[in-house]
């Protein structure tokens, strides 16, 4: 007894240490989670606003040819109004710096406005146009104070003009509509995620249409019909193994088979969807089999007892009961496919694509690849846009997973 007593304090201390290590480990993982989210949100939330500059544009009727409104010199109009706002600026170099304050997209903005409302011609009106990304960064305070003056891409003169504009109330941060409605661009202030979102949509549509029926059919066969033999074992080992093959290997397969052998178009959502189908199939098959397993044998026996054939038993009774579980697994598989990047790099979905894809064979990119591309861009303004795109992607994933949890909760049956 005395021997035990003597060791007891030490043993309790060890016990306490061990438990503390467990708590610490959990805290560490939660801390990492918080850090990931804090870093992304902290860097990204500003991207939902974009600095705009107010210009006094006079739409001089002489500048317009009434037959071809779209051919007018809109960049010239923008430059002219900038000159009028700062009459004291002269000299080619200074003027170029002045023009650099507004985005090159300002003229497109102006053109769209005039095209939509031709009666504006002849009027002088204030127009809010997007500012250049450097101005945007300065206004949002990402360039720091005096210390990093040399590192910024804005000259002293430009800073003075911006200060004047700010004092006049002609610079304003507004909701960044461009970010949600356009495709990629080299200019950060004109770059948007809509092209990538549509690409992701088409790719996932292909994946869903192919992988759900095939996955469910495979699961039904393996769970309900397959005889226990070596062949079935081989299939099962294959499926389990495919679930753990690195995703980039599927990309190599797609490149060698779909692109080089079948000659399907590069960068197309169709090929991306095919590759992702092969990748998500194992997930869906495994989830569907679990769902089929959870249907109690009494249902099967009941159906068989009143004279249903085996196929009728499966299709009319077991499958409907297992469907919610299968859908849950499919949604989770789709969420994983949505976040997948590496195999899509292999099949060329990593190109710089400005247009919004409109069909399955248009070249396009997807959200995670867009994030990867922007992460590689040197402009400071792409940092916040990358983070914002990540926030959008995470939002999609959260919605999908929440839907899966909801489905599971709603249809979960205890037999």
């Amino acid at each position, binding site marked *: 007894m005395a021997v035990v007593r003597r060791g007891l304090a030490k043993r309790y201390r060890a016990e306490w240490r061990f438990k503390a290590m467990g708590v610490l480990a959990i805290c560490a993982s939660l801390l990492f989670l918080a850090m990931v989210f804090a870093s992304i949100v902290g860097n990204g939330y500003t991207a939902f606003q974009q600095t705009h500059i107010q210009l006094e544009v006079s739409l001089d009727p002489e500048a317009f040819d009434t037959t071809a409104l779209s051919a007018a010199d809109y960049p010239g109009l923008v430059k002219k109004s900038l000159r009028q706002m700062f009459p004291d600026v002269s000299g080619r170099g200074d003027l170029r710096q002045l023009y650099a304050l507004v985005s090159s997209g300002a003229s497109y903005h102006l053109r769209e406005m005039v095209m939509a409302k031709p009666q504006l011609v002849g009027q002088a009106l204030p127009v809010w146009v997007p500012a250049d990304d450097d101005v945007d960064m300065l206004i949002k305070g990402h360039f720091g104070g005096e210390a990093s003056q040399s590192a910024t891409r804005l000259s002293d003169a430009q800073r003075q003009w911006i200060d004047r504009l700010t004092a006049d109330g002609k610079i304003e941060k507004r909701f960044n509509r461009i970010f949600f409605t356009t495709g990629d661009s080299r200019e950060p202030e004109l770059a948007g995620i809509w092209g990538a979102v549509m690409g992701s949509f088409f790719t996932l549509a292909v994946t869903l249409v192919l992988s759900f029926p095939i996955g469910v059919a495979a699961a039904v066969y393996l769970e309900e019909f397959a005889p226990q033999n070596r062949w079935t074992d081989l299939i099962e080992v294959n499926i389990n193994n495919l679930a753990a*093959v690195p995703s980039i290997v599927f990309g190599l397969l797609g490149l060698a088979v779909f692109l080089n052998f079948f000659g399907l178009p590069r960068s197309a959502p169709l090929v991306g969807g095919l590759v992702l189908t092969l990748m998500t199939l194992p997930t869906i098959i495994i989830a569907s089999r679990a769902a089929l397993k959870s249907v109690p044998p009494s249902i099967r026996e009941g159906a068989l007892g009143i004279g249903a054939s085996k196929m009728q038993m499966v299709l009319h009774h077991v499958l409907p009961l297992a469907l919610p579980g299968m859908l849950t697994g499919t949604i989770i598989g789709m969420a994983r496919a949505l976040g997948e990047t590496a195999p899509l790099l292999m099949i060329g979905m990593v190109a710089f694509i400005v247009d919004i894809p409109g069909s399955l064979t248009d070249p396009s990119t997807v959200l995670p690849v867009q994030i990867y591309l922007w992460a590689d861009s040197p402009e400071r303004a792409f940092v916040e846009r990358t983070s914002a795109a990540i926030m959008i992607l995470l939002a999609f994933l959260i919605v999908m997973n929440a839907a899966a949890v909801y489905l599971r909760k709603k249809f979960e049956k205890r037999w």
Partner: protein
Amino acid sequence: MTPTTLFFLLCGLSAAAYVLGRKRAFAVGAASGGLKRLHSRPGYYGLLAALWCAIPALIVFSAWQAFDTTLITGLVVRDLPETIRSLPESQLGLAINDIRNLVAGNIVSGDIDPAMRQAADRYRGLQATSHAALAVIVLSIGAAGAFWVRQRISAQLRARNQVETVINWGLILCSTLAIFVTIGIVFSVLYESIRFFKAVPVTEFLFGLKWSPQMAIRADQVGSSGTFGAVPVFAGTALISAIAMLVAVPIGLMSAIYLSEYAGRRFRNVAKPLIEILAGIPTVVYGYFAVLTVAPFIRDNGALVGLDVSSESALAAGLVMGVMIIPFVSSLSDDVINAVPQSLRDGAYGLGATKSETIRHVVIPAALPGIVGGVLLAVSRAIGETMIVVMAAGLAANLTANPLQAVTTVTVQIVTLLVGDQEFDSPKTLAAFALGLLLFVVTLILNLIALYVVRKYREQYE
């Protein structure tokens, strides 16, 4: 008629066949004294008609689609003037491409040869003929199939059994897809790898110490000879994976132990899903997190203590990869720890062991095979992980064990070699497939061992 319209037309025809077959079954049933006289329910007769309409037609359709481009191209090439036909294969390929572009109405490089234009016209004509012929053949096969079934419908026709056989074969086909995918992976990777190993000996690839895959494009180019010694790449992969495992295994294992042995129900219900979120975050997000936050953090802190840390250090990539793998290790260990029978714990408590002693001396040894299996799966995932290392690790193949330097990995090399311009006869491109083959084989072995261990262990306590 374009193939797409034809396809939808065929679907429509097949739907019509269903309706016709079903109607006919009702009629036959009424004639022979009520529906109960029929062998199957009327819907099955309809289905049978629809299947006979669609399946043979679809087989012809896809075979035609697979071969018609080759056939038409062959015919067009045969009629090309001798000057073009005698070109070497690659230039002939370019010419054919030009013809196809002409057909599609795209912009063609250079001036258009009248012979080419003629060929394009011929191509277009043949294509139109082919489409028309296909439409006629497919639709008549479909109609004939449907009509044939309709004629055969009688009270004795075992429609249900026939339909079920077809469905059954469909199910079998779907389930064998997994095998085809594996075969496809193996062959596509192996084929290109063999071509690579014809240019570069296997021994040099496996044991060479210098990796610089940039090939000289011109013969007189300096400095890029292209050496394919992959040891630095393997070493980099091993280093980053080791760092990742050093992070993931202790944290993941301790979390699993705490959650399954100590934590109360409510804490567990909150903490476990939160940790699982880490597994749901896309890897590209982790990569960006590593570049944006972790790498500068490590570099700045290294500079404070006077260490020279590369901005693409192995440490940053490994650390973030470890975070990604935590939930993987934790949930797998959680499963096996929960599978350890309570009687073992009760026995240890009965001998006066404290909770931590029970865990360390009884539960963990009992769960060890399962934990090892889980860790092996995690290692295979770390080796195959791509986006984190592509974004956060470097491209330079340094042979070093210093985690503060930049290293490169197998997956990074595959991505850099294959993204961008490719020509499939240069060892540079083929090297990516050799690396891919290696990656596939290594992860396959790890997975098989892990699955075997886990499965074997499960049987023990069941």
